[in-house]
């Protein structure tokens, strides 16, 4: 009887520990790709993103530079970029509506109006259209 109780107690504890871990810590999903240079979903473009000010703070408005090339490294000129994103673990989108405001040439584009107001995992999605080809990429960012 005691043995059964002990095993049962252990099981309950394990379950509790697991639930606590899941709920309290909201860990980042395993294998989350945090690379800031990625290939778009259908393989049409190579995209790098970098904050214009590397010291940008959470919950402040700031800009990113997206650099787009073809897979062979040729800069993609005259692209259109639509920006979307949010926090998958909280089920909400971006707090602002960022826009691509400047084509800087050489496949570089300024994206203004970005703000991440919470700590944790953010998705930053770019839908890119250039030369009649559309493709998209979802970057993962972690706010401290």
């Amino acid at each position: 009887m005691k043995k059964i109780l002990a095993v049962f107690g252990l099981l309950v504890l394990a379950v509790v520990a697991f639930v606590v871990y899941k709920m309290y810590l909201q860990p980042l999903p395993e294998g989350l790709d945090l690379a800031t240079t990625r290939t778009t979903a259908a393989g049409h473009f190579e995209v790098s993103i970098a904050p214009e000010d590397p010291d940008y703070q959470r919950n402040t408005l700031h800009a990113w530079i997206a650099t787009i090339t073809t897979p062979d490294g040729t800069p993609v000129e005259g692209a259109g970029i639509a920006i979307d994103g949010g926090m998958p673990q909280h089920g909400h989108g971006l707090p602002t509506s960022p826009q691509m405001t400047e084509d800087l040439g050489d496949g570089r584009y300024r994206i203004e109006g970005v703000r991440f107001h919470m700590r944790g995992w953010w998705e930053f999605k770019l839908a890119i259209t250039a030369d009649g080809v559309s493709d998209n990429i979802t970057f993962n960012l972690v706010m401290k």
Partner: protein
Amino acid sequence: MMKPLALGAVTGLAVIAAALGYFYSQNNGLTEAELETARTLSLASLPPLPADPSNAVADNPAAASLGEALFNEVGLSANGEVACATCHLESRQFQDDLPLSQGVGTTGRRAMPLRGAAYATWLFWDGRKDSLWSQAIGPMESAVEHGFTRSQVAAYIAAHYAEPYKALFGPLPDLAGIPAASPLGNDAQQAAWAALDADQQDAINRVFSNAGKAIEAFERTLMPLENRFDRFVAARVAGETPTGDAALTPQEIAGFQIFAGKGQCTNCHNGPRLTDEFFHNTGIASPQDPVTDHGRASAIAQVESDEFNCLGPYSDASPEQCGQLRFMSRDLHLFERAYKPPSLRGVADRPPYMHAGQIATLPLVIEHYNRASPAISGHSELTSLGLSTDEKAALLAFLQTL
């Protein structure tokens, strides 16, 4: 044969209990990650006040002293009895302890505490103003607050504050013979406004907005105050043992852990003001049926079309400096009945709670979050928490340290 087995089970349980006890005591001391979260919520991480490029006198001390006088000036009201300070009492964290405020009439929302408001991106519960100066001129023309008009504000300043005004902003226009006039007033006031020529309207708007800019300069001096939690965190970050009232009790520390953990409060109440300055639907009951207050959803068009916004003619900012307005999210679906989380500093001392004082006490606020009832309109972002009685008591104890 039974004996060793039972012994093993008992030993096993004892080991687990000891381990749990160890983790519990460790947690009371806070892990590194928890301490870091605590630091982000404390005054230690308050950044310098961001500049307000839309207000050229935002950090001018002479403007702040004129602004302080205007903040307390009952002459700027229809009945000569209402000032900003009527609803924002310094001795009461610059709020009034009422569910709905009393000015010339009764407001539709609860007065907000003003310390640290200069850190906010958007003002009011629904963020329909994008600067403190533009906010400040709102109540003056509200029929239920000051019940005044902008032409009367300009005339009053010319009569009573001409010297400090001119030193800051230059000459005052000649307003002789202009009646109570405002594009937002009653029919007679609107007609009087329409009868003015564009130059007169512009001159009045200029004085009116400058009054707001002086008030903003005063409000920018109202910084958040240090609380027990700040002192606790400061000591812990310095590697010292908190003493005196900085020594939080184990229950208060457990409450912090729930606030930042299981309670998910830091999802929205984060940073040193314990607010993310954004807008959330948290399923708060509506005092009106049917719902007439749509929160942020109706504020977007208002702030966008406001002639006193960052991009308007009375702003001192260049368009590039108005990023928050230019890149504002316009997601009406998301913003239905979404409101700005107030700073939680000093929160235990100022019931009732929420945008129309819907919740009378902090224990009831905690019940509200624990239950997470669906929204009457739009979608609540909350999920029920399953807090135990002890956990609720701990969370309450923590909120009282703020």
